[in-house]
């Protein structure tokens, strides 16, 4: 088991170094990626600032609580953009051209090889913006020492849940000819999850918490961090994370069976 983890870590290390080498060949694109994300983060924070110039609370949350939530979601977004986002856009091409064949031949898990192969170093750079913002607003909302200790793990769980949802959507591309639309669907879900669950009306809140659990990505852990008695969404998030990864493995296998290998 340990040996296998070591093997995967060394493979991932190669992915990181080749992605860095590739991005250094296109330096302007590298810089533009950073600037693009910064514009996005800036507009998101400024939107909340403008809203809170008019009101003191949304739901029961004050400005700093919503800012902390947003910083958390942008950190997840930044991790997704860095680690997996590129692969979702390339995946339909792999299916259409039959290049997935070459991935299936390699002695490494094909899901790992397909979706964790392309790293965006430009987006990785923005960790210097999202994480300090998370810490800054964490201080503003007076997080307890326990909450600070849990925060890195919650980021990891949120990233895992986000990835599971994204991967499930991506596997549908096995049965669809075009993947662009599904990638837009993925982004729309991400957009919805960037607001706290309490803004949505009851029926939709339940649907997007317990049906397609996108609202649990941020609201599950953050509500628990603000109030440990409010633990149900967090427990639901852990359950959803486990269940969806099982479904990802299942649908990936089913998808591979449906894959027609266009090149052969």
């Amino acid at each position, binding site marked *: 088991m340990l040996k296998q983890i070591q093997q995967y870590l060394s493979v991932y290390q190669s992915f990181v170094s080749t992605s860095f080498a590739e991005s250094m060949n296109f330096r302007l694109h590298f810089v*533009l990626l950073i600037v693009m994300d910064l514009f996005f983060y800036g507009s998101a924070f400024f939107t909340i600032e403008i809203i809170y110039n*008019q009101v003191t609370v949304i739901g029961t949350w004050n400005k700093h609580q919503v800012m902390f939530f947003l910083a958390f979601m942008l950190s997840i977004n930044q991790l997704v953009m860095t680690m997996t986002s590129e692969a979702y856009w390339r995946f339909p091409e792999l299916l259409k051209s039959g290049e997935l064949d070459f991935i299936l031949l390699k002695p490494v898990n094909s899901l790992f090889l397909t979706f964790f192969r392309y790293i965006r170093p430009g987006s990785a750079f923005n960790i210097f913006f999202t994480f300090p913002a998370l810490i800054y607003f964490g201080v503003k909302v007076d997080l307890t020492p326990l909450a600070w200790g849990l925060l890195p793990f919650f980021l990891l769980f949120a990233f895992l849940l986000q990835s599971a949802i994204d991967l499930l959507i991506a596997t549908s591309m096995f049965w669809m000819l075009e993947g*662009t639309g599904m990638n837009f669907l993925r982004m729309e879900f991400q957009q919805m999850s960037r607001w706290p669950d309490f803004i949505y009306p009851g029926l939709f809140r339940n649907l997007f918490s317990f049906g397609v659990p996108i609202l649990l990505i941020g609201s599950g852990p953050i509500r628990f961090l603000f109030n440990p008695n409010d633990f149900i969404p967090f427990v639901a998030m852990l359950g959803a994370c486990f269940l969806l990864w099982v479904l990802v493995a299942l649908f990936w296998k089913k998808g591979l069976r449906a894959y027609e290998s266009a090149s052969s």
Partner: protein
Amino acid sequence: MAKWFQCMKVVWSNLMVYKTNFILQSISPLFVFLFIKASLWTAIYKGAERVEIGGYDLNQMLTYHLWIMVVTLISIGAISQDLSQDIRLGRITAYLIYPFSLFEFHFSGFLARQSVKLAIALFTLFGVVLALKLPLSVTSGGWAILLALWAGLFWFFLNYFFGLLGFWLEETWTLGVMSQVITYFLSGAIIPLELYPLWMQKILFFTPFPYIGFVPVKLIMGSEVALAQAFAVLTLWIAFIALCGYGLYKRGLRLYTAAGM
């Protein structure tokens, strides 16, 4: 004219083949965006001490965002990825010898997509007016649609310009996404511009952004709008960006190596 129509027909049949793609890519984001904004503003008004925010009560705010969806359906289109990819892969070579230029090809594609989006926007507009019994003056509604179409033209030229940067850059999609983020933020698509700081509002009206969302919506909602100024500012921006695009194309062609042939 027949060439233009044939090109448009190709785009229409493409849209028909990849219907789900078109809906998920161009239509559904606006509905999702509307749903998020409607939920958000409802939650905001629930907690607010005042009934009005920036001169809008809840119903007016929701109506504003409904019209924003209809207007941006026409004024904001796809990004420039295809063009820059065509340049990078040497696919534009054919247009150098065809009796139909690269610009004409892309513009006819734009017209075809725009006609579909206009039909959907008009259908939504009249559907909403009839279903919710919202007041709508035919004259101001007509001017608003015309202004949105004009803004759509600006959006096309802007994205064509970004696409042409493919002569120099490996990837240009980041510029498209950036322009989309900035446009949504500064056009009043997220928050009505009345809520922005006054100094910012003053500057914004010299840029094309308010005319992409905010101004057409105010027209539909029956507010007084300086129409001549709106068309003048937007026309100047269209002329400017189209000229830049023309210059860029001429310079780019000198660098073009027709790689991929």
